[in-house]
């Protein structure tokens, strides 16, 4: 019997997917709802392949969306809502890694490389600008022949 129920669930579960943000979740106040949407776009569905809870159809994402709205209604600031969710699900759910600890490497890598690359490029350009005498490499025999063929001499 147990197996039968399991089979039944497996067959019919996909027929009733919970779909992204549902009308019944939407908060009455558009300003609060906009905040909720912004927050849930930054939260990752813990069981999906890289979807935000805002886009995800998973049941847990619906729960998280409701939690976010509950906290907003309770008067939490955006940061407090995120802290609340992170304290329960870990930083895995944050799509925007906090710039702290090792994550500083991530955040500073781009600007750092730009500065380094910029310095190297600047040095290179200044050297090119100082006008080194170009050195010519001689043509090899084959190329001499081709050159004569082209110039007709």
């Amino acid at each position: 019997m147990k197996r039968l129920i399991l089979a039944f669930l497996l067959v019919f579960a996909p027929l009733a997917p919970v779909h992204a943000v549902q009308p019944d979740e939407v908060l009455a106040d558009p300003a609060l709802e906009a905040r909720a949407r912004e927050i849930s776009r930054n939260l990752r569905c813990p069981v999906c392949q890289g979807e935000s809870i805002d886009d995800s159809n998973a049941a847990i994402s619906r729960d998280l969306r409701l939690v976010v709205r509950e906290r907003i209604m309770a008067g939490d600031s955006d940061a407090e809502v995120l802290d609340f969710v992170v304290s329960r699900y870990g930083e895995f759910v944050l799509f925007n890694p906090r710039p702290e600890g090792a994550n500083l490497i991530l955040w500073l890598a781009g600007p750092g490389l730009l500065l380094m690359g910029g310095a190297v490029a600047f040095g290179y350009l200044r050297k090119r600008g100082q006008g080194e005498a170009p050195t010519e490499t001689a043509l090899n025999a084959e190329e001499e022949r081709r050159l004569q063929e082209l110039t007709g001499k």
Partner: protein
Amino acid sequence: MIVEFGHFALILALAVALVQSTLPLWGAHRRNAALMAVAEPAAVIQFVLVAASFAALTYAFVVSDFSLLLVVQNSHTLKPMLYKISGVWGNHEGSLLLWVLILALFGACAAWFGDNLPPTLRSRVIAVQGMIGVAFLTFMLFTSNPFLRLEVPPLDGMDLNPLLQDPGLAFHPPFLYLGYVGLSMAFSFAVAALIEGRVDAAWGRWVRPWTLAAWVFLTIGIALGSWWAYYELGWGGFWFWDPVENASFMPWLLAAALLHSAIVVEKRESLKAWTILLAIMAFGFSLIGTFIVRSGVITSVHSFANDPERGVYILMILAVFMGGALTLFAFRAGAMEAKGVFAMVSRESALVVNNLLLAVSCFVVFIGTIWPLLAELFFDRKLSVGEPFFNAAFSPFAVALAAVLPLGAMMPWKRGEILRGLRPLVPALILAFSVGALVWAMQTGRTALGPVGVALGIWVVLGAGIDLWARTGRGAIAGRLSRLQRLPRADWGKATAHAGLGITIFAVCAMLAWKTEDIRIVQEGGSYPLGPYEVTLVQVDEVEGPNYFSTMALMEVRRDGELVSTLRPEKRLYPVQAMPTTEAAIDYGFWRDVYLVIGDPQANGGYAVRSYIEPFANWLWAGCLIMSLGGLLSLTDRRYRVAAGADRRSAAVPAE
């Protein structure tokens, strides 16, 4: 029998690739013409064999040969013919065969169109291309063989993932692969030149069309993929900064950098070592993309364990090719001295800035993509990197690039002045600023993205037009107009591609800033307002498709009582895979798309309905198309045809 024939052809192709990657290389080293001459027929034969193998696999899919494991796993007799064919590359093994087919095609193209290359360089290019072929053919035959048979064939197959049952699958991967794999040519040219120990203007001219072609295909491929995601996934997004998307975006950025730096090599014989490095890295990122997509290591850290063999093999390919090429580079880079002398403010410098911005932005995408992996490996932190990070970390580079583009594009070679270069652009600057400010004033309180996008778009598009106009010189309008028509195609291509980029940037900003969304429950027969429109859910029907069941809504969009469009959004269920999909219905328009999605029936009657107005959506795809059109125009420029040896007439190309 045909399947065995295909399998055998693939093994033969590996043998030919082995010959192709060794004999010509040895011949070029010993200056042995006979050995070098092996290169061309080998490349062509390898292509023919892989093509035969691909045809055999396609045949198995078309006739639904369920004795083949791959067909069982990815097909079904009821599946429409289009998806039976495109299903060939809708899976790991088949798409790898397409990858190898395109690789062999590029090798054969080098044999067909390489007449004008010095014989040693040509043999070496084809040999390196053969080595990549060997790597991927062994990968396929040993870990991902598409021709595995089943002892007891089942009655029917398991069907293709319903999300992939879309015309998008027919076009998106082939274009993407033409781009990805096309970069192998730039790689082969770079490695061949390193072996040769010689990089000159001619090399820049030879490598550029291949890079340009790869970049054009990659642009179209990415745009098609983005459009597909837009209409298929059902919430109107077009780019998700997903690792797999990033995997295609990184080579695109580097290919764009490469085709700009190759101009400096071609015209000024500078930036040689950097260009070679870019050519190596661009293909390196193609391989990294292949690794990301096929090992599953990054989308989900745990799926690596599902197939360690494949991931490890691709990592080995990556290590061997990148390691080998970079070692060669380290030995030979010093020998590549630059010739051209140029001032700090010059076209050369502008192109260096372009390369710096593109390369660093590629690096930002790269580190964002692999950071979850690194953080878990080294810091034991499980974390995610998604859209907010990329928006914050990548956008500044895109903005900076667009801001300097028109100025850099008009800068004279060797020596220029910023203020003088800016003078012809003043009208564009004024217009961009004032329209941007106007938009800013009109939409108080909303994101700055909209006005910034408008200003950048106008600046880049007008800048491209002014650049083209300035190329006609001075004098009467009539004379300049006639000169405009006679400008080289490369000039037209440059202006077109730049304008396309401007349009794309504008559309991205507009869609992100001005999208309207509405989520609500609607009863059958009910209406609701959506922006300036009135949408009615007329009725909802249950419909049966060839291999799915559909809940199809009939919805009418009206404006001021007049019918604008009748749309039929669907929710489908594919019973074989027990998977539901949403099929959004879109009314495409010049200024906006109206995008409707039907959701679940509600407990107390009615349906969940989501509606979007997507402003300027079509401008995004149009911008990408215009960009690639620019690349194509440039590709048909006379001097490439001359360089390719198609036109032997004496050509007096004026020095620039």
